[in-house]
């Protein structure tokens, strides 16, 4: 029943409060999947790591709210 959802967000406590089950902490509110201080190439490496983490969260069995940090 239901689709697994990876919630990638910067404010983990909010995600927990609203009831997300698979939580992936990201970088910051205005740029969750990036970091303007890095070069575009470095940023993309960072982004790729976060997306892979989200995909891995979708394949991970959990029984309760879980933060994939």
């Amino acid at each position: 029943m239901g689709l697994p959802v990876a919630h990638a967000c910067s404010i983990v406590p909010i995600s927990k409060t609203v009831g997300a089950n698979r939580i992936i902490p990201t970088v910051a509110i205005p740029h969750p999947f990036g970091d303007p201080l890095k070069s575009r190439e470095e940023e993309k490496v960072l982004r790729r790591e976060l997306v892979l983490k989200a995909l891995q969260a979708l394949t991970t069995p959990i029984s309760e709210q879980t933060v994939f940090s």
Partner: protein
Amino acid sequence: MTMKSPYRIIYCLNQFFGGLGGEDKADHPPCIFDGPKGPAILLQQRFPEVQVVKTVVFGDNYIAGKTDVAVAEVLALLRNSIDFSGADAPHLLLAGPAFLAGRYGIGCAAICKAVQEEFGLPAVTAMHPDNPAVAEYRKEVLIGVADKDVMGMEEGLDRMLALGKKLIHHLPLVPEEDNYILQGRRQNYFTQKSGAERAVEMLLRKIAGLPYRTEYVMPSFDRVPPAAPLSDLSRARIALVTSGGIVPRGNPDRIESASASRFGTYSIKDVAALSSEGYQSIHGGYDPTYANQDPNRVLPLDVIHELLTEKVFGSLHPYYYATVGNATSVARARDFGRDIGQRLVADGVQGVILTST
């Protein structure tokens, strides 16, 4: 205000309380009777000022299974047997109490909603707060709090009638006194002390360990059990959803930057990455500079596309869904989620990445 004529009431019951039968009659289509039946008779006995003019009875399965059809049939029955603009027009419709019975609750609430919209007739039901119909209908339908089973019949009847009289006479509902399920409405009132004074008083009481009561109850969030994981990522169909307000430039659906009332559906069929020329953030409350420079920072389509090309996952749903999380109500968000979820399931999506700012 007093009324010379009695309160003329239309009553709605399921097959069990309406006397048609038990589960064997649960598929019975709606029918209408003159006068009161079951709990409506009890109501009339308890309140001499009440006259139940008609009783609608419906099968639980029939109304919960195809609610739209069943409600349309109820409306037709009422339209054909009652003159809503005549001198003897009814004052009120009551349905239930449905206690913890889910199908019955849905039937009662759906009829109340339809009748008040269609005929402008005040309508009230009552049920236990955990009845599944509450979450669905509480905003639009006035629902009195009832016990979990028929032991609370008399209390439920009294409560429904009291609430109904308030609707008839346009009296304000008082959350602390009227025992109804809150509908999330705000009322203005005058007070002697400013918000700052009241907040400090509340804080001092809290520090002193004294009881205090918040003036703004935070919404309660429901919980869902975690969904089963993907068994094979390399074959899985993945979808992207964001509450970060990333939309095509110009915001074609005019999604609000706060308190969003809608979400947008945008094709990414042949889009390998989100360009700053093509997409923007319309989310209020955070500085959109970085998202506008590179929208992939909020919705990482560039990387998703790379991983798809590398066959890390099986396929990508050809649309992404976007709304704005800023001050958007939980009820709205729940509606969006239900709608988006249905579309994803229909396309065979197996996993979702939801990004938030």
